[in-house]
């Protein structure tokens, strides 16, 4: 029994979150949600996981503002952001592309909480499954939230890296560059390069992304699938048709 694409991502995310006390997961994010739940499942320390859209996994009760206030207070250790475009300086664009704003050729939903959480959450994991030159661009058309810039703006938080269907890049805030750290089984460094339109570094120790072992897979397909199914029933039906 080998891990599916989603299971590898869930497992990778859980590893990135293992030292957190508090993790929040935004809307439409079943894989990060499952990753956070797996991290909690394995954690020895007390871990708070808040999944927007879940009633069961919700450490909050003061309305939508609470997540943002909690982040400002230093009570959110990790969060996930994506983007219609992501560039090599970790700028992200959730608004639109092509043409002059606001009449862009393509319009995405909007910036959500990115223009705030990206500054304040110490471990922002950029997560975008689609890894193509259309998404991984040299320069975003609209900066919903900038990568770290050393511009004197108050910014205790920022990106730790970028996880895609192909690989995991870490991000160096001082050098403002991504470094390819691991490539998912079945993919290669050249494939990452071919599908990335921004410059990045490659770690001298680049290797395959570790796959979940039998125990981890059993947890993902068992309790984690059941738990994430409360907020994402359709996701669970698609990804774990036989298990959940």
């Amino acid at each position, binding site marked *: 029994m080998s891990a599916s694409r989603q299971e590898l991502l869930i497992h990778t995310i859980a590893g990135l979150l293992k030292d957190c006390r508090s993790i929040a997961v935004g809307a439409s994010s079943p894989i990060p949600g499952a990753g956070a739940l797996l991290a909690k499942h394995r954690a020895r320390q007390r871990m708070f996981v808040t999944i927007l859209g879940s009633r069961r996994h919700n450490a909050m009760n003061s*309305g939508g*503002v609470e997540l943002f206030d909690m982040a400002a207070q230093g009570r959110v250790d990790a969060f996930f952001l994506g983007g219609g475009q992501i560039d090599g300086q970790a700028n992200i664009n959730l608004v639109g592309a092509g043409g002059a704003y606001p009449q*862009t050729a393509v319009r995405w*939903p909007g910036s959500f909480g990115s223009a705030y959480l990206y500054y304040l959450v110490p471990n922002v994991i950029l997560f975008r499954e689609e890894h193509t030159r259309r998404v991984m661009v040299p320069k975003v058309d609209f900066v919903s939230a900038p990568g770290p810039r050393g511009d004197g703006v108050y910014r205790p938080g920022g990106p730790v890296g970028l996880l895609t269907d192909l690989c995991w890049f870490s991000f160096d805030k001082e050098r403002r560059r991504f470094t390819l750290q691991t490539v998912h089984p079945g993919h290669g460094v050249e494939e990452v390069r071919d599908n990335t339109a921004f410059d990045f570094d490659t770690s001298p120790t680049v290797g395959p992304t570790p796959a979940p072992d039998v125990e981890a897979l059993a947890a993902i397909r068992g309790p984690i699938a059941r738990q994430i199914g409360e907020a994402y029933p359709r996701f669970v039906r698609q990804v774990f048709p036989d298990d959940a």
Partner: protein
Amino acid sequence: MSQDWLLGSAEDIAARIPDGAKLAIGVDNIGVAMETTRAMIRRGVRDLHLVCVPMAGLQADLLIGAGCVATLETSAITFGEYGVPYRFHDALKHGALKMMDATCPAIYAAMEAGRKDIPFVPLRGLLGSDLVVHRPDWKTIDNPFAKDDPILLLPAIRPDVALIHAPYADRDGNIFIGRRRDFALMAQAARNGALVTVEEVRGDVDLMASEETAAAALPAIYVEAAAIARRGAWPLGLDGSYDIDEAHFRRYGELARTADGFARYLDEFVHPRKQAAE
């Protein structure tokens, strides 16, 4: 106890929203006053300034498609997994909307400033985002309490009215909102409070009588008026009462892809009274 706060229908609620009103609405899954929204379209309200707290979906797309909206202030317009808000995209492309793109915490902070009636509030984050470039109403200053610390000031938002749908009103017009505290924020910040539709009025309940239930109420003092609208959030869901009508939502998404299809949707699902009269 007088029940002068209780109106007859969602049409009566819609009648209290004048053209040009600044209207606070909530996210699609919280309890959206969709029957009131249809009633607003039926009566042809115009030039609304929608403040989405902090984002919106079907409700905003419907109002935009029907030509009711002049200004849209939001952090996102999304249908989630149920499709694409084509009427919103179409209006943007045709320059038919004044677009005020924001980020969720900026809308919350500005609404909280409105609740306090302070003129502005500072907020972290945001500097360096292109959002700031397109929001001339936001101002960057130097934090007067520190050195070399630029910070953004947001003007307060005080909507004219907040529009919500909730499970029930009690005998005194207190509204059960559970932990949907966004409704309280919207109603408090709004100059005229909330216009509410509810699934039912529970004449035997006094939410304010115990500590347990009082915390889950929107107190009546913030409620301008209420009316019963059964399944008033349809085709959206109401947590604990009914689920979203997925098939209908998807059908909307398909029809609203074109202006013609959207017009057919309105004829079928929003203007049935007009049809019946013809």
